[in-house]
């Protein structure tokens, strides 16, 4: 039994994750009566600060926010809503089994200096490599800003896009331009090998290229993933490391405050069951409570498979699109482990305590010992197994933000790469989850001996948990694999890369849309431009 529509809005945003909030804020800012509906009790989705059992707080899925689009932060006035970002001078620290380490700094000259300890040639190569990555990433960034062109027909708008892209392409030097087309599809293993000879240096750079993907360091397309990660941040080849004070949830809070400030209404605990349609147009949404809310525009922050197959009435899709949507690849390969620690663990490779506390402020890369070592960790996951030698990206946010551990001590947040969503033997039950936690701690022990004795609280989220907790189909943090088959004008699907879903009035604003995943707000910002353009046209 359904009740009468309770209220009417100009636009409804499904999902109060960070892209949903960005969309809600921009729509409200443009004067639309906007409602954001979030199923969970808290806002922000994966952008969350979670309590640990020992009273400390830890990040939900993403632990750094350096790729947040500066224009989003500026236009939504996030600083005024309490957002404070801190970027330590160190970007990544990769301890090695022999007690040495590769450290990448924000300052390219400093990185180059330190890399000389690995190889003179590598030290010499860094500055040019960093420049090259920045030049190519700047081109990708201009792609990311644009709504992809339509692949069928062709319109004036597309011609303009083409022109803009052409201009960005022209900004590249002739050599960079020629190289771009060669480099984009490359495996990261080959790309780093063209500049560096030390395996640990190659691996430390390559980690970012495979993060959150089901790709190995030898997989084609991983260089594009690295450039996408470098696009729109200041990190160049070292990558970004930026913390939101108060944890990632503080960014979600600022986004929600901004949205409300522009007049958007936000409801939590409001699960959307489906989108209602009439005559091929969106008419509103139905909630799990049975409530129906009318609106001519629905912007979905859910993943594309959930949006197309879960929200829409099946008849609206047709068999062809159903088949294609069903084949959207979402192979989650990432697990999360958060640790409450009584004191700062000792990483011998980071040097004396004072020096260590400086070097450990960035991303700590465990397992970045060599390209083939990385590939072996990947191999196991292809067959549904968890490697003994997982790749870890850890942060200790309490080094820059002690507020996360009010009673002292530290928090370590670990993203474990190459943990398959589907296990070949067994399922992700409590035993498997704890075994994974043990494996991650043991892996940390290899570079920070004694760390296990410091653990005061531990939370493990497997890919299946990430799916249940955050509604990520397949457990994929990017809503869809960021490989070349789901890129730019064909992300999430050919014919639907311009944020418009197959029913008029339905839009995709989450990372399943161009330019993809991570804490950027970019897909939502791009999508709202299209929503407003369509609205003007009507």
């Amino acid at each position: 039994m359904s009740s009468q529509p309770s209220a009417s809005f100009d636009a409804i945003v499904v999902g109060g994750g960070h892209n949903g909030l960005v969309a809600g804020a921009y729509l409200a800012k443009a004067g639309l009566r906007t409602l954001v509906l979030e199923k969970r009790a808290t806002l922000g989705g994966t952008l969350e600060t979670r309590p640990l059992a020992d009273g400390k707080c830890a990040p939900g899925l993403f632990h750094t926010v350096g790729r947040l689009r500066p224009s989003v932060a500026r236009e939504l006035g996030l600083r005024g809503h309490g957002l404070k970002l801190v970027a330590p001078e160190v970007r990544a620290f990769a301890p090695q089994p022999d007690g040495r380490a590769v450290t990448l700094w924000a300052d390219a000259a400093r990185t180059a200096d330190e890399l000389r300890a690995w190889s003179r040639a590598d030290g010499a190569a860094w500055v040019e490599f960093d420049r090259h990555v920045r030049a190519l990433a700047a081109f990708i960034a201009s792609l990311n800003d644009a709504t992809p062109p339509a692949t069928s027909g062709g319109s004036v708008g597309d011609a303009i896009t083409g022109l803009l892209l052409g201009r960005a392409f022209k900004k590249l030097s002739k050599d960079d331009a020629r190289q771009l087309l060669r480099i984009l599809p490359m495996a990261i293993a080959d790309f780093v090998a063209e500049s560096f000879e030390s395996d640990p240096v190659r691996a430390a750079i390559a980690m970012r290229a495979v993060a959150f993907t089901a790709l190995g360091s030898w997989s084609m397309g991983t260089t594009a993933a690295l450039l996408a990660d470098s696009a729109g941040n200041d990190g160049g080849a070292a990558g970004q490391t930026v913390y939101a004070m108060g944890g990632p949830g503080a960014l979600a809070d600022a986004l929600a405050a901004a949205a409300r400030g522009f007049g958007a209404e936000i409801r939590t605990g409001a699960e959307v069951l489906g989108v209602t349609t009439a005559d091929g147009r969106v008419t509103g949404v139905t909630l799990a409570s049975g409530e129906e809310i009318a609106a001519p525009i629905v912007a979905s922050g859910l993943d594309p498979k959930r949006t197309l197959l879960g929200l829409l009435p099946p008849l609206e899709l047709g068999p062809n699109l159903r088949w294609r949507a069903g084949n959207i690849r979402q192979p989650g390969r990432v697990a999360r482990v958060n640790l409450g620690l009584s004191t700062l663990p000792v990483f011998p490779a980071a040097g004396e305590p004072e020096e260590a506390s400086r070097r450990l402020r960035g991303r700590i890369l465990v397992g970045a010992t060599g390209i083939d070592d990385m590939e072996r960790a990947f191999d196991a996951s292809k067959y549904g197994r968890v490697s003994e030698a997982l790749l870890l990206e850890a942060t200790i946010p309490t080094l820059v933000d002690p507020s996360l551990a009010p009673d002292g001590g530290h928090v370590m947040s670990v993203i474990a790469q190459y943990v398959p969503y589907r296990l070949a033997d067994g399922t992700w039950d409590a035993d498997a989850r704890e075994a994974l936690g043990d494996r991650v701690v043991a892996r940390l022990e290899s570079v920070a001996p004694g760390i296990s004795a410091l653990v005061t609280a531990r939370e493990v989220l497997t890919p299946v948990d990430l799916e249940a907790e955050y509604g990520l189909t397949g457990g994929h943090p990017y809503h869809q694999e960021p490989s070349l088959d789901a890129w730019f004008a064909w992300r999430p699907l050919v014919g639907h890369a311009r944020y418009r879903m197959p029913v008029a009035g339905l839009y995709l604003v989450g990372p399943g849309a161009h330019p993809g995943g991570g804490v950027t707000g970019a897909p939502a910002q791009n999508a709202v431009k299209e929503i407003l353009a369509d609205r003007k046209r009507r």
Partner: protein
Amino acid sequence: MAQRYDAVIIGGGHNGLTTAAYLAKAGWKTLVLEKRRILGGATTSDEIVPGYTFSVLSYVVSLLRPEIIRDLELAKHGLEILPLDGTFTPLHGDYLWRRDDHAATMREIRRWSATDADAYEEYGQLMADMARFIKPILGMVPPDPTSIDPRDWLGVLGLGRDFARLPERQQAAFLGLMTMSAADFLDQWFETEPLKATMSASGIIGTFLGVRSPGTAYVLLHHYMGEIDGAFRAWGFQKGGTGAISYAIASAARALGVEIRTEAGVSRVTLTPSGDRATGVVLESGEEIAANVVVSSADVRRTFLQFLEPGILPEDFEAQVRRFKFRGSSGKVNLALDALPTFTTNPGGTEYLRGAVSISPSLEHMERAYDDAKYGRFSRRPYVDIVFPSLVDPSVAPPGKHVMSCFVQYAPYNLAEGALDWDNQKEAFGNVVIDLVSEFAPNLKDVIVEKHVVSPLDMERDWGLTEGNIFHGELSLEQLFFSRPIPGWARYRTPIRDYWMCGSSTHPGGGIMGANGRLAALQLLKARKTKVA
């Protein structure tokens, strides 16, 4: 110096011979220099065991360009392709047999999965459509991406326009083919493991990639490209062995006036004193030959690093040549047999051996074979593609006897540190292949008369294939089209005037196509403003 040629071609493989024939057809005085005693390069046959003729390296043909067959009248010169009928995938206790009889194939797939049988028809249609769309690329000269000359872009723009007109479903399929792994692409359609595994195999042949590596789906198309020429079947054998294809092109070339010399290895290309222009070649014998144009059909590393003195090329260009990826990944095991082997589970008769026999039981089998190679050792359980040409063409073996050709992947040229070199593990490699096939055909060992193993190192030493790469360089997306062999140098020219390329390192890559040789010749004639006859 005895005489001066308009063009000297280095290398008498199928591409070198094709270039020569086209140049001669336009009236150029042309000489082909082949280092080996027999012509054909990797497109070759040899009677290695008395009475048995092996297609030593490449063993089937599908993509030989129909315009070349027509222009050079190859049928008159002995080209005769016999059909290769279907693919048999033996399994433990069962098999999957697809053949040219469509109804039979559908029945067979339906035996495995009704969904797959339905999907198979649709898939075949879609792939045929895709092949028709993509084929013009094979006849196109890639523009320099930074070029602003609209004429350079006509072909690509036309393709872009055609793409915009494709139905969405075909656009999606095309983009998937260009970017996905063969396994992911096939996973969209099928559920039957041996079917997916066997189909995926065509995506990895000759590459250092696995069936789960992005970029391998593209090659799936090649199976459908040959098919739609009408004149041709998807895959076939040349009568008398693969070498007869080269001999047909050579015969056509000679008829057009081309001079061909074998056992005439080139040691270097001669240049003007300023070093910016080619003037001819010096043979290993010391003999000098003058020419207005030198065209190399050797791979890009040999073309630039072996035939030229160091320091001649721009530094940046040379660096790019050095990083061009070869990474040979395959080997051959050629067997002379007393009789045909019998596969334990078979459909009866010998009909099923007239096509390919593919050892590809599952995607995991395929992928694990690749895992071994990634870390520098040959696959402990490889993928093997077997043919028995003597069943279709009895002329290649003594009466009642047979030749068995096993293409094996993976056999990485670059072996792990500490491993035995190829000369010392070739024997073990051959045995692994024979043992694996024997699991499915237990009497194999009893019928072997002689075995001949070709390692990637042999391919490099004996055929000049750098690092044993059968395609003159990896056919991965970053080494195709605009970027093959070097970004900005995809138009058969080199930084040295009058020194050109026409081998498989150039667009559109390897395989017995001849397209490279033809396109290079046409570009050269155009540059020299010679009318094409």
